[in-house]
């Protein structure tokens, strides 16, 4: 049975794997991969370690190879690989070889399921990162500075006695720069910490929820609705 015959029989329409094509021979980023233990077939490729680890957990008899384009010299390999047809490639004695396109229905189902899952997981990771990147500052040790400020602010909030400014260098400078008192500065810092934490927490809730939904999905036709649910919840319901 060929891929096209399979797709017609299952009435399955690719979600995003056919548009999310990875050229693993020329991709400048690291490409990670999942293989079948018995046949050494390439089941999925991804730019995300996370995607491959998740698929490895959800599939029996598989093993993961990380950074395959960095470890193996793929440029000299004689094959064209796109993410929609990973399973046409076998890995023997450190070499990738192309195999004939002749599979049973169950094999094809499993191959396509993994490819689609990889594509949906990649998209999920991309969106989660997009949201997390927006709270990144990008400066060296900025996280530590935020941490110091938070600790000082919590201490000021707890303290009912007269506050010695000298004990709170970060908050003292913060308050001075904004022309506010130390208590107000502490309150300002704590609400910023809360905003930061809740935002990150939302991305983590969504990541875990949808990672598990994708991981446990065994019906290829359901992946489309999982992706729709994620988009609906993350954008329309503003969960992240």
């Amino acid at each position, binding site marked *: 049975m060929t891929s096209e015959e399979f797709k017609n029989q299952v009435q399955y329409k690719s979600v995003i794997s056919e548009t999310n094509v990875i050229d693993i021979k020329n991709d400048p980023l690291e490409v990670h991969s999942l293989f079948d233990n018995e046949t050494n077939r390439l089941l999925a490729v991804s730019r995300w370690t996370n995607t491959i680890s998740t698929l490895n957990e959800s599939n029996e008899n598989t093993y993961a190879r990380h950074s395959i384009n960095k470890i193996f010299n793929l440029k000299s390999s004689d094959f064209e690989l796109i993410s929609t047809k990973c399973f046409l490639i076998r890995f023997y004695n450190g070499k990738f070889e192309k195999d004939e396109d002749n599979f049973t229905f169950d094999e094809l189902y499993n191959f396509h399921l993994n490819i689609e899952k990889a594509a949906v997981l990649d998209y999920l990771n991309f969106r989660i990162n997009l949201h997390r990147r927006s709270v990144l500052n990008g400066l060296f040790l900025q996280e530590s500075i935020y941490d110091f400020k938070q600790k000082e602010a919590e201490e000021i909030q707890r303290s009912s006695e007269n506050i010695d400014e000298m004990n709170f260098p970060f908050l003292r400078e913060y308050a001075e720069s904004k022309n506010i008192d130390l208590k107000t500065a502490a*309150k*300002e810092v704590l*609400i910023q910490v809360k*905003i930061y*934490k809740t*935002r990150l927490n939302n991305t983590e809730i969504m990541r875990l929820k949808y990672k598990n939904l994708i991981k446990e999905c065994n019906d290829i036709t359901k992946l489309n609705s999982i992706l*729709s649910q994620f988009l609906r919840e993350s*954008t*329309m319901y503003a969960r992240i």
Partner: protein
Amino acid sequence: MQEYNLIWYGAVDIFHNTRGSYTHLFQNKPGFKYTRYLIQFFASQISMMDRTETIKMPINSTILPFLKLPQFKKVTTDLEELCENRARYLLNKAISTNRKLTIMYSGGIDSTLIMVSLLKVATDKELKDYVIVLLTQASIFENKNFFTNYIIKKCNIESTYDFTHYLGK
């Protein structure tokens, strides 16, 4: 907000070009094609309904009772007084039902009007006990002075990103 049973969002998904849910059940109904064009033209996440019911949609549709516009009536009260009365009414309702008013404050003109009205009619104790302001960094930057001079000094502040925990309570 617990799960995916919000009907007013679910309806839009039916018309989505590639990811429509239950589209196959409706796509042959009269007006489906034109409604899809309309939604694609404006934005896929916006559900278009005319609350005055002047503009007719291509499909058979109706406004849910709680979304219908109230009857127009002439009043002589000015906007300031109207806002203050409404703020007092909502505050009294919160107090009598032992609940808290949660304001999703963006720092823009509408939510600032709500906050100003509440600040004018509520005592410091009422603000502390019955009002929660949800905001983000963007809300703070939008109206820095108002945040520094009033909100942070008088109100309980929480993160908007946690808003689902404050709905329906």
